[in-house]
């Protein structure tokens, strides 16, 4: 399997980029969305663990831009461009955004997963980045990793095993 030293870990409300033989991984996505950007020619990849849909609701003093869909995706893009990626080759894949708990008459917080997904899609559209594949929704957690050598996104869940996008 994959050597641990080549794995770049992305925590909750975090983002990172990598190249060549690196694998970028985030674990335990629930309502959060794991969004990846990839340049297939240069084999450069990036991943953001998006927690909330919009930075407009943020009340924190120092904004963590990796946390919100509308700020994380532009930041991830610029980090990837800094690494040498070519703008118009960049493609996206994403996974997560589930509803871990279903309640009758759930409030807005309950719908945070689907809202994260919508918000990520909107951000991608605004940046004109094609979304190649997604594995979103449901009511289960996911661990995902992108192989920078191939751009393949591996999704692992307790109930459904491993899936490849």
């Amino acid at each position: 399997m994959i050597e641990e030293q080549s794995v770049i870990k992305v925590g909750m409300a975090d983002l990172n980029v990598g190249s060549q033989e690196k694998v970028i991984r985030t674990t335990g996505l629930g309502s959060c969305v794991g969004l990846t950007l990839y340049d297939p020619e240069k084999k450069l990849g990036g991943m953001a663990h998006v927690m909330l849909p919009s930075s407009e609701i943020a009340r924190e003093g120092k904004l963590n831009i990796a946390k919100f869909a509308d700020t994380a995706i532009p930041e991830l893009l610029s980090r990837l461009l800094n690494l040498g990626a070519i703008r118009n080759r960049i493609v996206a894949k994403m996974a997560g955004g589930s509803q871990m708990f279903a309640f009758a008459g759930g409030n807005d917080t309950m719908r945070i997963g689907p809202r994260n997904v919508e918000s990520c899609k909107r951000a991608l559209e605004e940046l004109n980045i094609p979304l190649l594949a997604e594995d979103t929704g449901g009511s289960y957690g996911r661990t995902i990793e992108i192989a920078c050598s191939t751009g393949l996104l591996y999704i692992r869940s307790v109930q459904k095993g491993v899936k490849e996008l």
Partner: protein
Amino acid sequence: MDVLKEVGNIGAGNAATALSQLLNKPIDMAVPKVQLLGFEEIAEKVGGAEELVFAVFLRVEGEAPGNLFFILSPDAARSLLSRVAGISEVSGEELSEMELSALNEIGNILAGSYLSSLADFTSLSMYPTVPALAMDMAGAILSYGLLQFGQMGDDALLIDTTFLEGQDEIEGQFFLIPDPESFPKIFKSLGVPFE
């Protein structure tokens, strides 16, 4: 922080009593820990973001809203089921509908008992919503309780209580994550200034 620890202690004490009545034997519990933790560290408390856990989740409503999780390892969940519900052959990866339902109800009783004692102690109204059960990765489950904190920063206040039943290793954890706006109320009700 000491005051919050005492609050957790009383809550867990009542929950432990409820559990020991269910099991008809004494239950020990650890002294609660009250910590301000980074999001990543919270999942680490149950063995990591990918660790498979059973969780009963209750949204707490009332004057001091928050999120309450009762977390069990799969082994502890099976052990608890066989002891309490008299389900002797809890085997295989998947639990049956009936087993899940029993587990949900046990979690509900314990969480309700935990919560009502907190409400008594603080004189704040706190009542649970309908419980929901999930078996999944700890990170995916717990992140749900951190969303309100996500708007404020990257840390959350966690009141973490473990209780255990001697050698039989039924070990469970209560994670209470009060909403950010609940702290001043909880502190005030206890007569402690909040900075």
